[in-house]
């Protein structure tokens, strides 16, 4: 009986370590800092065309996100660039409940929660356009 209780205790302790409660990401997130590098023509029309690498640090050039659905680790929403069309965005938290992956039509990203901020880093790989960016967000 004592062994059974010990096993139950071990299970209870081990379970949260395996799959932590994911961060509630619902809401609108706006950039507070942004850095990016890109070459080419973005298919969404969000940026100008660059024939040479463009390196920028300007939060006005970051995308904002509105996540309106979350079911445990999975979530979805819309992202808005500085111009051009909004994009559907889907994502999932890792088991630690803090780090996550994101995907849209044009690329994929990884992110993490830092206190009340989130950081999202993108890589875009589409014909005639490559880009990488990291943006820190606060909830609106």
């Amino acid at each position: 009986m004592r062994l059974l209780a010990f096993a139950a205790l071990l299970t209870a302790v081990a379970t949260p370590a395996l799959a932590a409660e994911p961060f509630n990401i619902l809401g609108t997130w706006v950039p507070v800092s942004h850095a990016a590098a890109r070459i080419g023509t973005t298919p969404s029309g969000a940026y100008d065309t660059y024939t040479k690498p463009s390196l920028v640090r300007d939060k006005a050039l970051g995308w904002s996100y509105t996540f309106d659905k979350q079911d445990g680790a999975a979530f979805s929403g819309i992202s808005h660039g500085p111009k051009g069309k909004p994009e559907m965005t889907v994502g999932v938290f890792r088991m630690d409940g803090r780090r996550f992956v994101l995907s849209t039509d044009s690329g994929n990203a990884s992110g993490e929660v830092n206190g009340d901020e989130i950081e999202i880093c993108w890589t875009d790989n589409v014909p005639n356009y490559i880009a990488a960016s990291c943006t820190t967000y606060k909830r609106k």
Partner: protein
Amino acid sequence: MRSLALAFVLASLSTAALAAEPPNVVGTWIPVEHSSARIGPREGLPTYAAPSLTHDLHFAWKLVITAQDGPAFAGYNTGPSGKPKDLVGVFRSDGVRFVMSTDGGAATGEVMGDKLEFCFTDAIPVYVAAGCTIYQRR
């Protein structure tokens, strides 16, 4: 006055924690360790019908970073085809880890002292590959 000074110190520490200064990565980086796995056809390589797993440094791409503005950087890498390919990258706010993009795929990496590691995944039709390479500055 003392509390004002303390607040200033705390604010400085907190800012540094939020966005650490990234290292200067401009220069030529030489592969010192490499592992990769691939299957399918790729320019400059034999076509692999079955997965090929290797630790041969000859499969590592040469990395040259030509420009950097804070966390953002750009350059090119040269693989087995011998043709340089543009790359762009950005450091995360910790100033250590970064993401990178080329026309063939994406990579994540980090700087460890005088070494740099990046791990790529290729996204090219009918070719899949993943690899990690450790570089040292020339």
